[in-house]
């Protein structure tokens, strides 16, 4: 039985990591109550509350718990996955867990920051978001990312001062660059200027 099959066939052992994010989350959501409550969710093996889960000590707690409690799923209840999903995927990978076995609950952008005056309702919502993430985590399976090669060439669209500078920088780094300009000449708006501030030198 290879490692991947082993993880999927094992009963889920979920670690939930509730983040205070300083006061960003804990200022509104009762993270202590969420932590306590999450312990009774199905297949949850351990629940840890951190001041800053994304910081090194927070990430270390996750790695430590994965090893100690033989966790095979992780739920990080902190901020938006659009912000820190890569961080926590990397974190669980460090100790051999497939990155797709990490799930996030967005308690900051979608909860504490937008419900500042409603502590009780925000805490209830936070619980639901954790419950939903745990329910999903129980069913997650490892995924393998496809590796693709990168074509060593770049396209720059627009031949004004920005496009020209970008194209030069890329070309100076040794890459093939295609600079596409709609008009009959490069130069853009800047070519239409006389002098430029604050040095008063010519634009062309």
């Amino acid at each position, binding site marked *: 039985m290879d490692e991947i099959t082993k993880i999927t066939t094992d009963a889920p052992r979920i670690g939930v990591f509730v983040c205070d994010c300083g006061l960003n989350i804990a200022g509104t959501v009762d993270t202590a109550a969420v932590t306590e409550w999450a312990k009774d969710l199905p297949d949850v093996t351990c629940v840890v509350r951190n001041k800053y889960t994304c910081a090194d000590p927070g990430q270390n707690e996750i790695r430590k718990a994965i090893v100690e409690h033989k966790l095979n799923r992780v739920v990080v209840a902190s901020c*938006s996955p*659009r912000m820190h999903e890569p961080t926590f995927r990397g974190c669980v990978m460090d100790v051999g867990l497939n990155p*797709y076995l990490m799930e996030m609950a*967005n308690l900051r*952008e*979608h*909860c504490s*920051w*937008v*419900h500042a005056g409603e502590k009780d*309702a*925000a805490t209830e919502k936070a619980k*639901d978001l954790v*419950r*939903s993430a745990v*329910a*999903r985590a*129980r069913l997650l399976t490892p*995924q393998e*990312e*496809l590796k*693709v*090669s*990168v*074509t*060593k*060439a*770049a*396209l*720059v*669209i*627009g*031949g*004004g*001062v*920005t*496009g020209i*500078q*970008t194209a030069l*920088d*890329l070309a100076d*780094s040794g*890459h093939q660059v*295609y600079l*596409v*300009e*709609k008009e*009959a*000449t*490069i*130069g853009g*708006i*800047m*070519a*239409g200027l*006389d002098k430029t*501030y*604050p040095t*008063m030198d010519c634009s*062309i």
Partner: protein
Amino acid sequence: MAYSEVVNVSGFVGNFKVTVKKKARYVDEKECTACGECVEVCPVTRPDEYQTGFSTRKAINIPFPQAVPASYLINMDDCLGTNPIACGKCADVCEKKCIDFDMQDELVELEVGAVVVATGMDVYDPSEIDEYGYARFPNVITSMEFERLICAGGPTEGHFVRPGDGTRPKRIGFIQCVGSRSAKRGNPYCSNICCMNTVKDTLLLVDHYPDTQCSVFYMDIRAFGKSFEDFYMRSKEEGVRYIRNIPGEIEEDPATGNLRVVVEKTDGQGIEFHDFDMIVLATGVIPRQDSPIIRKLLTLSKTSDGFLMEAHPRLKPVDAPTRGVFMAGCAESPKDIKDSVAQAGAAASHANILLNAGEIAIEAITSTIDIASCNGCELCVDVCPYHAIQSNGKKNAPTIITAACAGCGNCGAACPTGSIEMKHFTDIQIEAQVDAICEENAGEKVVAFACNWCSYAGGDFAGISRLQYPTDARLIRTMCSARIDEEFIWRAFRKGAAMVLVSGCHYADCHYISANRQTVQRVNRIWDKMDRLGIRAERLQLEGISAAEGQKFAKVMRDIKDMREKVTKEEIDETVRILSEEHDKKMKKKAAKEAKKAAGAAA
């Protein structure tokens, strides 16, 4: 590649295929020596765009002497005709024989790993502010026109004169924020560059003509950059008057062409007049009017000001939400040359990181098909926006080309037999989330589906902006709203949810080309069925919320709370009863079908 446009982009990060249309110049740019003989004989005269119309050019022309490539081109809209009988004088005199009336547009295919969007800006047209008379008074000019008039390479060789009568103006007024910082006309944002540009203009004038009297009408002078404040002070020391007031009107004396500016006194006690020989309108920066084309080609979004939306407003200012695409300069927001150059370096550096990687991992979120249960209906083939599902003939299971799959999940939602599984966003994973949300007090909740790229991000933006809204909704993230199977919505109602929200990108702005059109169709089907079943269709809401629309996200959340409060417990109980009966019937039918199939197989 000048005089060229990107017309198509396909592929994905590290592996883009780009089609560029190289427009016909009708002059061989490699052979042309820019001798200018052709211009001498060209009979067609038109306003010169480069000189903002202050001088003329011919139908065959070079935009300006230092143009790159240094080659002429024929503007075919102006040329007397491709038929050499009509004119053809330029071709006759061209010694190098590089004029070719039969030249065609050419399509060039490129393969690139990264794309940098540096499409720049357009300039606000002040004609709509009629009280400034830009379209009526010749001596009211824009800051871009000022540049040409003061430039040694300009139409007057740097002699600064009035367009109206060619005399030198001695009293010059500048009006700031034309088209900027206005909720009514133009744009509400600050254009960033106009203050310092005007300061520069005043210094140029007093340098060239020390007897010039300059006055600047302004709201605030924003001299925030390095050494900008010194620059501004220098202008003041040179005697330029800065008047904190934005004029209400410009009047012209028809006899002299002189201009009178009317401003309210700052103390509110009446009005005052200022007389000038010439007025310069500091026109603002606007998004490129053709930017929707590039946005569509590269699946980019815009912020509410119309400029391109970055992947993160603070941490990823030069990365586009589409992986492998970067942005810099005024395409992202109004900025000056120094900032544009700095951002160009940043974009180049980020593109470099990708290009130097050699090999990168792409997301594993793609779909798979279970051949055994597939009935070969090919609905998935039809809905895939990437043509990543290949037909093997009706009745046969199609093949999914994993490398071409972008992971929207549209096929999974379309599949009537549940044979397609979207990795990492499987039916059971999403249904488990619906169940979890509805486990307690479902009648007080809104089950809200949100696509990763737009509406979920719009929710994040509302969070970052600390926009407050009610707590009713529980979001379930999918990559695209097209992943939302009709069954997910029915399930939420069956489990007692008061409301369901389906939110995604705007209709024509889907991150997965056109996938969210299916979302709309599915929601329409459900609305019809809700009507038939006697369930109020209003309880299912569909909204397009872009990543930049935090305000809209918060508003949708407020509106949906109001709707949620109108849903009674009795109504929910009745819905649960109706849908449970429906579901039981469906399950029985399915079981009977499977039993029949099993019996058939056994026989």
